[in-house]
């Protein structure tokens, strides 16, 4: 039979342990949270493309190449002088996911605002020369309206503006550097259709987000 003193001691140790672990988890989670400003999340992501700045700008102004590059996932049309409308397709094939207005503000600087999408978001992209002949840094700042719970669900479900931004930066880099986005879905395998669908979900998890 455990004495009362032992029970209290164990309860005390347990409580201290739980509180301690909770604090550590909270601190780690806070460290992983993006900056918040007036109800907006602000994330900054960047990727380095091994081409001079003019070549990266040239890629976006070569309309034919851009259309070919965007074919599978978005269309781009000019509204007027410096404004463009981008309509992205839902990767699952369910029609339009979002529409954005893109404004070119100068050489190597553009802004976008999502005008029709599930989450309000806006952002800016700046092209900066990378050091040591490493090409161009594409630096993006994304602001979007969301809350901690929605963000957590979004990150788990793979449907979150921050993840989409990282995917986009990686796609852009790949298109500029090697003219394609490599895809191994539908490569030969000995899987049944059901197994293939399950594997596609794993592929999606391993593709979405990443370190931009």
């Amino acid at each position, binding site marked *: 039979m455990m004495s009362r003193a032992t029970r209290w001691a164990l309860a005390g140790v347990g409580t201290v342990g739980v509180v301690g672990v909770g604090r550590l988890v909270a601190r780690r989670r806070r460290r992983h949270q993006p900056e918040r400003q007036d109800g907006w999340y602000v994330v900054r992501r960047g990727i380095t493309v091994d081409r001079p700045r003019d070549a990266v700008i040239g890629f976006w102004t070569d309309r034919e190449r851009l259309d070919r590059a965007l074919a599978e996932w978005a269309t781009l049309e000019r509204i007027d002088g410096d404004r463009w409308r981008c309509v992205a397709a839902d990767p699952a094939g369910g029609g339009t996911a979002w529409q954005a207005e893109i404004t070119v503000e100068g050489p190597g600087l553009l802004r976008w605002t999502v005008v029709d999408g599930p989450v309000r978001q806006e952002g800016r992209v700046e092209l900066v020369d990378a050091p040591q002949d490493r090409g161009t840094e594409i630096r993006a700042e994304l602001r979007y309206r969301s809350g901690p719970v929605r963000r957590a669900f979004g990150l788990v479900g793979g449907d979150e503006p921050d993840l989409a931004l990282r995917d986009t930066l990686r796609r852009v880099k790949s298109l500029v550097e090697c003219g394609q986005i490599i895809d191994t879905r539908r490569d030969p395998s000995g899987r049944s259709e059901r197994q293939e669908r399950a594997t596609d979900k794993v592929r999606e998890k*391993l593709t979405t987000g990443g370190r931009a």
Partner: protein
Amino acid sequence: MRALCWEGVGKLAVRDVPEPRIRAAGDIIVKVRASSVCGSDLHLINGYLPAMREGDVMGHEFMGEVVETGPGVQRLRVGDRVVVGSVVACGGCWYCRTEQFSLCDNSNPQPVLTEKLWGHSPAGILGYSHAAGGYAGSHAEYIRVPFGDVGAFPVPDGVPDDAAVFASDAMPTGWMAADFCGLKGGEVVAVWGAGAVGQMAARSAQILGAERVIVIDRLPERLATAAARLGVETIDYARTDVLEALREMTAGRGPDACIEAVGMESHDVGPTYAYDRVKQSARLQSDRPTSVRQAIMACRKGGTVSIVGVYAGLVDKFPLGAAMNKALVLRMGQMHAQRYIPMLLDRLAAGEIDPGYLATHPLPLDQGVRGYELFEKKRDGCLRTVLHPVG
């Protein structure tokens, strides 16, 4: 078409699978003529790299004939007999431009897992799990090779298929291991592992100027083959204290360079090895670094340890203090196939390296399961099984 597929931990089977198709302008389709098993496949089969999916086509070291090319392919023609580097490289990123092809930025479409594990994602590898891009492998009648112009190289006439196949992976891996050692001529180089990669590393070290090469393994037939084919000295670690033997053979100095060509399922004798096995089985460490530890301890002060055996995660009791205080140079990595293959094919054609003897067990694809069993259990003197999907 027929293909050898992974069916779960420790299970393989030959299945009917769809044929590959050209998917991008730079793709080529290769009709596989020879496809070798590799020690690193065993890590995948046995579940040490946990990113395999049921039905994945195995195999990454192969050669064959180009049967179809995408509209963007310029360097290759249908009918070319080619060897393909197992590492996929886009040819357009900074890493490819600086010939560090196995670090390519764009060839792994599924980089999230490796970024979490390693901080960054290296290149994709054909037939090497979903951590390396989820590409279908070469133990099949046909394979799609992305960026064909970058990764496939015509094989010189007169070089047989079963020799050319090793220019895909074992030869460039061995060459890079020796290249890492920065040999200037006259060095003593020790090589852990007398498998295909270890033997190619030993041969490469000889070509690059090593005066003596000492190969360490426990399988008498592999050691005998290495001694007979390459003229190297050998140590059987199951019978001899390796560190003691190397000290004695080098009059106390230790080898100038130590090459580790074994990898994460490294074997040893004694209680430390038993402890490592238990920890690895319980997933308390992912890799067994027995031979890396020995290489670091054996290496002379200020020498180089070159690691080309495959490791995936965390190791225990890594002698960092020895490496630090002896001022060792540690170099390691997956091989940069595309940098070395053209040069190696020239050496193959000139007869300077002849890896054909490594293909001890040529078998039809339908006997792939048996081929891996022979290889893994090292039965019948098996050094490498090479599968032949067509005839």
